[in-house]
């Protein structure tokens, strides 16, 4: 047997890095198309009347949300897990043939599900539940993928050398458990072919069709318990897992307070699950649930800021790194946007504010300052940090990275600022009335007023997409950049001009 020193094995991490980049491009491209369709409705017919079915806003919207959530973000989570997991547990996947097999199985099954989702959503097969559009055969496949992911996580933990689980691992485990529970409960559904109508018909509808087990108010409650916690366990918890590893590692500073990280963890876990009611304020759900949703949303600021402040304090005395390293810039701006959206969210959850904000573009603005500024920035930063280490080469271009940073930051700012203005304008115009209670404006009045802001949002989104393409190019070129020595990879990532 040859006696090579043991090394971490990044095969599976690399595979998921690829899907992160590709699905990111697809998802954001569709996002930009959607944004311009809202500003210029003719674009719904861009490929002609005949193909309008495939190019209209309503067909493309779930493709955008699912591609960025379950494609880009989830791939990023998997890629970083297969990288961070090995390192903080100090065990290589190469040490276990079984884990290697599970990792690859995880990837290929995931890819098969992605293909199935894209085809089904393009052809209009959907359950019409937001973020849970997949029909039952796909749901079952999703569960299988998730179980394999779980086996990978716990398998690696089982053979670890480091006894204590680093805080990031806690967050990855919570992601796994949280999504498993949410996904199962919200997708309880009955294939229509098994149902019988009151008239006695059986085998109704296509084989892949199903109806939810919940109806009416219960459906709304379960759906938003799911939707809200999908944000929690998809856009918050795993991204916090990333920043707890990548920021200390890249800056060479141990995390400011490990104790604070433990507190924030348990705080987040307890509070998040109760806040979903804020999506249903002034709807038909019981009043106390709405109030509870509001209150827990406000409390949620504490554990959220606990993590974010911990990150900023980790940079204490090291702020020159923010100026000199574009990679650190991404992470510091990411945690700043995290603080920003977790302050904005609780404000929107206050009943009187929600009365104006709900159904308007302000919510869309909130969504995108979180996902673009926090989730997107953090995943790109993680991949930038991983690239030199998995390819053993320096990052192709530092100046390209810095340019990308500024272009995307401008994009995010244009996106959320335009949506704030249009959202609040919308909210105010919808409720404005004269002294007799007659509404002052009709719907089309708002549409006319909002047009410029929709255009600005489209431009902001386009800038973000351009930045993302620069990121993809930079990662691609990194694969053939100057090879680096092991010693260069200790903390700050090596970067070419």
């Amino acid at each position, binding site marked *: 047997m040859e006696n090579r*020193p*043991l*090394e*971490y094995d990044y095969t599976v991490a690399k595979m998921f890095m690829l899907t992160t980049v590709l699905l990111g491009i697809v998802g954001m491209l569709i996002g930009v198309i959607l944004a311009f369709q809202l500003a210029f409705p003719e674009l719904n017919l861009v490929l002609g009347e005949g193909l309008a079915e495939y190019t209209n806003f309503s067909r493309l919207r779930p493709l955008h949300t699912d591609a960025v959530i379950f494609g880009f973000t989830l791939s990023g989570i998997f890629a970083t897990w297969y990288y961070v997991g090995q*390192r*903080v547990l*100090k*065990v*290589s996947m190469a040490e276990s043939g079984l884990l290697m097999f599970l990792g690859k199985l995880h990837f290929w099954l995931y890819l098969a599900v992605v293909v199935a989702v894209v085809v089904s959503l393009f052809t209009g097969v959907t359950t019409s539940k937001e973020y849970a559009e997949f029909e039952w055969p796909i749901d079952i496949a999703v569960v299988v993928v998730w179980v394999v992911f779980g086996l990978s996580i716990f398998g690696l933990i089982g053979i*670890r*050398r*480091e*006894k*204590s689980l*680093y*805080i*990031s691992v806690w967050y990855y485990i919570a992601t796994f458990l949280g999504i498993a529970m949410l996904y199962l409960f919200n997708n309880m559904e009955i294939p229509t072919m098994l149902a019988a109508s009151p008239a006695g018909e059986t085998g109704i509808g296509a084989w892949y069709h199903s109806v939810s087990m919940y109806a009416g108010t219960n459906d709304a409650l379960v759906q938003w318990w799911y939707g809200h916690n999908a944000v929690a366990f998809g856009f918050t918890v795993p991204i916090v897992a990333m920043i*707890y*590893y990548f920021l*200390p*590692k890249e800056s*060479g500073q*141990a*995390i400011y*307070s*490990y*104790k604070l990280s*433990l*507190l924030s963890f*348990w*705080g987040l876990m*307890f509070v998040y699950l109760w806040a979903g009611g804020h999506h249903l304020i002034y709807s038909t759900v019981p009043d106390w649930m709405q109030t509870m949703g509001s209150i827990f949303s406000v409390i949620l600021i504490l554990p959220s800021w606990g993590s974010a402040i911990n990150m900023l304090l980790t940079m204490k005395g090291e702020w020159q790194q923010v100026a000199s390293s574009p990679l650190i810039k991404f992470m510091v701006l990411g945690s700043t946007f995290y603080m920003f959206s977790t302050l904005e969210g609780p404000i929107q959850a206050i009943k009187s504010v929600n009365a104006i904000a709900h159904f308007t573009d302000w919510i869309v603005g909130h969504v995108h300052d979180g996902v673009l500024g926090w989730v997107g920035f953090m995943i790109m930063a993680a991949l930038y940090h991983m690239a030199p280490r998995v390819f053993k080469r320096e990052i192709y271009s530092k100046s390209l990275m810095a340019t990308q940073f500024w272009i995307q930051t401008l994009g995010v700012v244009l996106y959320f600022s335009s949506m704030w203005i249009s959202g609040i304008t919308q909210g105010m115009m919808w409720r404005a009335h004269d002294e007799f209670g007659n509404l002052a404006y009709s719907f089309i009045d708002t549409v006319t007023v909002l047009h410029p802001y929709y255009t600005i949002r489209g431009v902001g989104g386009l800038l973000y997409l351009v930045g993302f393409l620069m990121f993809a190019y930079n990662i691609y070129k990194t694969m053939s950049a100057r090879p680096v020595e092991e010693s260069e990879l200790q*903390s700050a990532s090596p970067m070419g001009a």
Partner: protein
Amino acid sequence: MSIAEIQAYGYFFLTLFMVLVLYGYIYHLYTKKKDADGIDYEKYGNIALDDDIGDAPVLPVSKDKEK
């Protein structure tokens, strides 16, 4: 007592209980400073920094297994 009252009391005491647990945990972390294995919590921050496969773990899974 009506069901609504029971719920209200339940909710109140549950919240109180959670608050006590949280503050108890904070108190515990900051007075003990060390976990059951006798390791200062802050040492665990180094798991991310010294994460090469050859680096010594902060706390090895089993001492006798390591050389």
